[in-house]
């Protein structure tokens, strides 16, 4: 064969970039990174996971904040005895705690009905005073007691028992202190269930799971990346809510950050597992939405997010305590508000571990990739 014939056959290797080699964990890291990018680019996620709980906490915190004691509005029906009653109250050392208006009877009653006055004082025919108050309104009951006390003392009653007072409104026992750990728990449940369950069914519906299974992707890595993305978000969720509590409501966090994050991780993984199970077979977003709400509804009500579950009958208590959100809320409250160490919380950790672990195992068995 001559050289001339050979030349056209020789192909110059195309300047392809060298083949790269992927390590064992390349798939996992790419899946995790892709998931976080997607979450970051989804404005709804940012709202529901971060902004919504903050708004909720701020709103409830402001509504139920501890108000400084306000002067009780009291109406005195004008008449001869009115001046005497007003003078007595003004003379009382506690006069600053009443706001007194003198007006005619119909105006006084109307104001009382509308909640403008807590108490109406009406001189009666016998020269005494008559209180008009509503026993169902705590502030009305309180105003009656206070006014009566002030009037009797000013008129010369002698106290027979010596008493003294100390006031207490320490951070740690207010409603906002109860609320923030509960919101944190609820948020970990909501975003865990939705973040895992919704994402999976969405990918199944889009045939993306099937496409992934058509590659050598390790299925365990895929699920691990999905759960890991929850952990990253969980740290941000905890940071945001606790900062809100500390900065705006002067909440005191007694437990260590490490303990709280560890509890958060266990909670996030637990609900990630429950979310995985809920979404293990559903083909449509609509069907998984219903299932999710069905699973979460009892916990929103019973697990002590907004109010203590002690209000439910004693019979229901063991069941309520077996719910994973109850365990998470109790554990978070004990850690944040009382600084209880983890070792004393093992029953709660066990509840969460069982829920998460059993769900995860069942989910793997039933999981439908296509």
């Amino acid at each position, binding site marked *: 064969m001559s050289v001339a014939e050979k030349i056209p056959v020789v192909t110059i290797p195309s300047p*392809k*970039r*060298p*083949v*790269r*080699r*992927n390590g064992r964990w*390349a*798939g996992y*890291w*790419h*899946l995790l990174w*892709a998931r976080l*990018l*997607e979450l970051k*680019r*989804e404005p709804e996620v940012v709202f529901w996971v971060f902004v919504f709980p903050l708004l909720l906490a701020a709103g409830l915190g402001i509504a139920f904040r501890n108000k400084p004691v306000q002067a009780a509005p009291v109406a005195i029906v004008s008449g001869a005895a009115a001046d005497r009653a007003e003078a007595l109250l003004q003379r009382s050392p506690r006069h600053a705690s009443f706001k007194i208006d003198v007006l005619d009877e119909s105006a006084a009653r109307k104001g009382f009905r509308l909640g403008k006055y807590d108490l109406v004082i009406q001189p009666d025919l016998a020269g005494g005073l008559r209180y008009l108050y509503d026993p169902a309104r705590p502030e009305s009951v309180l105003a009656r007691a206070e006014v009566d006390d002030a009037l009797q003392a000013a008129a010369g009653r002698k106290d027979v028992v010596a008493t003294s007072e100390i006031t207490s409104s320490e951070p740690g026992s207010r409603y906002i202190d109860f609320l923030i750990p509960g919101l944190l728990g609820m948020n970990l449940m909501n975003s865990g269930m939705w973040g895992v369950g919704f994402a999976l069914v969405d990918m199944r519906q*889009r*045939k*993306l799971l*099937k*496409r*992934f*299974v*058509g*590659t*050598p*992707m390790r299925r365990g890595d895929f699920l691990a990346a999905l759960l890991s993305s929850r952990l990253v978000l969980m740290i941000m969720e905890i940071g945001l809510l606790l900062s809100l509590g500390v900065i705006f409501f002067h909440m005191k966090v007694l437990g260590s950050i490490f303990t709280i994050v560890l509890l958060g991780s266990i909670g996030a993984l637990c609900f990630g597992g429950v979310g995985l199970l809920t979404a293990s077979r559903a083909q449509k977003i609509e069907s998984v939405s219903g299932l999710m709400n069905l699973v979460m509804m009892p916990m929103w009500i019973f697990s002590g997010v907004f109010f203590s579950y002690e209000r439910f009958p004693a019979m229901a208590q063991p069941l309520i305590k077996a719910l994973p959100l109850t365990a998470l809320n109790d554990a978070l409250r004990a850690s944040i508000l009382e600084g209880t160490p983890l070792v004393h919380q093992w029953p709660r950790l066990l509840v969460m571990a069982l829920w998460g672990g059993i769900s995860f195992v069942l989910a793997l068995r039933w999981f439908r990739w*296509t």
Partner: protein
Amino acid sequence: MATAIQCRDLRKTYDGKVEAVRGLNLEIQTGECFGLLGPNGAGKTTTIEILEGLLEPTSGEVSILGHSWRENERELREWLGISLQETRLSEKLSVRETVGLFASFYREPRSTDDVLEEMQLTEKADAWVGKLSGGQRQRLAVATALVSNPKILFLDEPTTGLDPQSRRQLWDIIGEFQGAGGTVLLTTHYMDEAERLCDRLAIVDYGQIIAEGTPADLIERLGGHHVVEFAISGNSDSAALEIWQELPSVESVREEDGMVGLSVREPHLTIPALLDAIDKQGHQLEHLTTRQASLEDVFVRLTGRHLREE
């Protein structure tokens, strides 16, 4: 030449009732572009998904590059590139991120940038998937398959719903892959696509192969490379069809919507005789065309139906 894909007596029954695939045999050589052609619901997708190892057959054997799915799934996955009929990739990831993600699943993937360049997606590399046109999305789907540097490429209806220019772009890409030594298995219900791309093809209907061969073979088997179609005034009843069969060089006759179609070997012999015959019957010729026979004619001949019919 080695066998790339082989299956024997493949059957798939859904829920014990619907027989999607009913005893299907295939043997595809390496370096070949093989097409499964058939109407919707013929069992093409079920067949290709069984071959891709995504569906378990009810019975039958599958061997890919000499390996079975049961024993060598992980290895096989490294060697195959697949594009499903309908995958909606994440809309909020960019084109480069998407291809990079798929590349990360393989031990030795190709460079993402090379693949994007080949797919003419370099300009769109940083655009979100949600912003792509249909043609670009389909090229991206093929890019996620090619980034693995596959030996076999599976494409399930790769050009359905695409505009003519995007289709031609994809055809070029498939041609290049095959030119570099790759094996391609594709499904389609487009005749022109099958004729243009496939070295060999199998026509599938009701879960079975009803004809197999090169496009030219199949047309040859029709018994004539040409089709003469005409319409005449007045009604031509079914008895009249026999008359046309008698004309010189006519292989077969069919009638549809008042048009008579003749499969013809040599039109220059048939047409004068046809005109004479019409004249003798006292009818008027209202329409006359001749064209090359296509796979559509093969399909109609074999099944009595058109490919695009549901």
